[in-house]
């Protein structure tokens, strides 16, 4: 039975804009803790959005997707990443990018405008729901976070943001896709491998999460 959600479009729009704002907030952080907390909030916002979509469409796949997103990316990953931060005596500050955060927020806003303009003219004419431009822009902002930061935990937040964007888009344009939940599971397994094993090894080997003195890995 399809549940009639009052103010459906307004709620979806509001949550979408909140997700974008959380992404811009992350671009502006030079400390790692608030970035991790912001990705947790963003994941929970997307969970709420998928729950609304589930109530609107009555597709059980969306409910499973919401549970996985909320539990893994909203709670488990942020907790594990905050645990990694605790290994360092001082709060983790990104030495490589801390001076540039205002300009990164500006870059983020420019990406939102350009991304939306491209999306509106190239992609949107072929889809019925205009709100899919938000996950597209979210994807680009995730890339921006990965490319501009040196700290592995912040890069990981960028990757999780990309995952959020792609599942958000999948839920909007292809809710009938049976594999969407499986996709989310595999992406999360990937996340577990990265955060749980490789990041720990990196921390132990370098005593920092911003390794930069590896001449052998150039050229």
């Amino acid at each position, binding site marked *: 039975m399809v549940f009639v959600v009052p103010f459906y479009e307004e709620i979806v729009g509001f949550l979408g804009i909140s997700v974008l704002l959380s992404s811009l907030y992350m671009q502006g952080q030079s400390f790692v803790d608030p970035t991790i907390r912001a990705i947790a909030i963003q994941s929970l916002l997307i969970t709420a959005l998928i729950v609304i979509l589930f109530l609107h469409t009555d597709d059980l796949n969306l409910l499973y997707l919401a549970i996985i997103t909320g539990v893994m990316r909203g709670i488990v990953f942020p907790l594990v990443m905050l645990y990694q931060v605790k290994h360092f005596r001082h709060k983790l500050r990104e030495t490589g990018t801390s001076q540039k955060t205002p300009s990164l927020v500006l870059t983020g806003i420019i990406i939102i405008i350009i991304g939306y303009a491209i999306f509106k003219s190239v992609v949107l004419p072929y889809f019925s729901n205009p709100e899919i431009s938000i996950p597209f822009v979210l*994807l680009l902002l995730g890339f921006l976070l990965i490319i501009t930061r040196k700290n592995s935990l912040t890069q990981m937040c960028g990757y999780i943001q990309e995952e959020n964007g792609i599942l958000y888009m999948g839920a909007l*344009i292809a809710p009938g896709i049976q594999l969407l939940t499986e996709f989310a599971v595999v992406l999360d397994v*990937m996340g577990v491998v990265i955060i749980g094993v490789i990041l720990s*090894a*990196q921390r132990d080997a370098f005593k920092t999460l911003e390794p930069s003195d*590896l001449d052998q*890995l150039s050229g």
Partner: protein
Amino acid sequence: MGPEFLLLILLGAPLSGALISLLPKKGVEMVSSLVMAAISVTASLIILISEPSGTYGYFYVDGLTRIMSITISAIFLTSVAYSIFYLKRIKESFLRFRWYYCLMNLFAFTMLLAVTVNDLGFVWLAVEATTVTSALLIALERERTSIEAAWRYTLIVSAGLVISLLSVIFVFSSQGTLQFSTLLHQPPKNLMIMSMAVGFALVGYGTKAGIAPMHAWLPDAHSEAPSPISAMFSAVLLPTSLYAFSRTFVLLQGTTTFADLQNLVIGFGVMTSLIAAIIIGHQRNYKRMLAYSSMENMGIILVGIALGGIGILGAIIQIVSHAFAKSAAFYSSGNMVAEYNTTKMSDIQGVIHRLKSTGYLFTLSCLSVTGAPPFGVFLGEFMIMSQAMLSGNFLLTIILAVIYIYAFIGLNRQTTLMVFGQQTNVSTEESSQNSTLSVHDYEGKSISKPKKENRLSILIPMINLGISLVIGIYMFPIFLHAVSGMK
């Protein structure tokens, strides 16, 4: 035995190998991996000979599937066998060896799944799963550089593959199904969405295949991984990603946007090969040099896939012969790593004086991967260039010829200097085996006599190089026959 049963054996063998490897009994991981890889090779050989074609349960089989399956399982078998020799040199490892073999089996399983499964969504899942299974293998030697390479590989490839998931979602959004067998006979319902799906697939799977400019992970991962894993990466992982891309690309064949997409793909292929060909000659690390050579080959294979016609046949021949030749090159490089404990070219001169067989094998493998006749890569490259000429694209023909020549000179000049140059004066302490005999030349300098090399470490690259040679001389009709029934 029906094709579906054979496919289940093909996939079930490495999966069982992975589970058995974890049993707490010494040596069981090596034996089980070898046996399961051999079973996998046998199953794929029977599939190749019996020529099944069409949909079998969850699987889709055509000529490309059959050829990819035998290539992946054969390289898996030789890599397992070579690991028995190579792992002896590793004193402190990131993983227990039973986990190494378990992940290696799972790595082979995910690649075999990617090339046999009928659903494009599962193809994506399998390709993404190859990252999960192979990331930790890169860090096996527990060096700072190998851990950083594993991190870069995981992050860049995963970020890229998210884009190919967008491609899968777009295909579903347009066609309402992800079954490849259905999609093949279904014209695109929304041509623009499908064209965008191909673009996203190119960027996403291209990241995993080392297509420029998304290739940043490739030289790091190839140079830092243990040699058997580098061989699997270069020989079969990169082509598996190109296979996944080609499955989306082919869906638009015959449509009005296909010519534009062809040009886009050719552009990416040429750019990749050109960048790699220029960089190869300036490398200081021989494993990185081989990695760039793989990138150059993948670019050319991508051009072959985009050109169609005999270009496809050339691309398939190049995939298979490159797989065997490049794995031989990585195994030979593994022998050098084991002996010299370094991957810096400046530290290794005159390999031939110390590791005679390895020196020759490495030289011949490098000649083979750069398209020297009569090896199979030459045949593949020649056919791709012929297709470029047949399609009237003379500029592309000339560019391809320049790339071939540039890569050939760049790689082989470096190899010749390393293998036949004046011998490096290395003390016995630096030798990992401590078995090199030191004598003195007429100037009183210490030089070493050729040492007796491990038979297994010579036999495996020799077999692979031999197969690459046989492909170039005898196996053209087999490839032609396999490809003739494909769309």
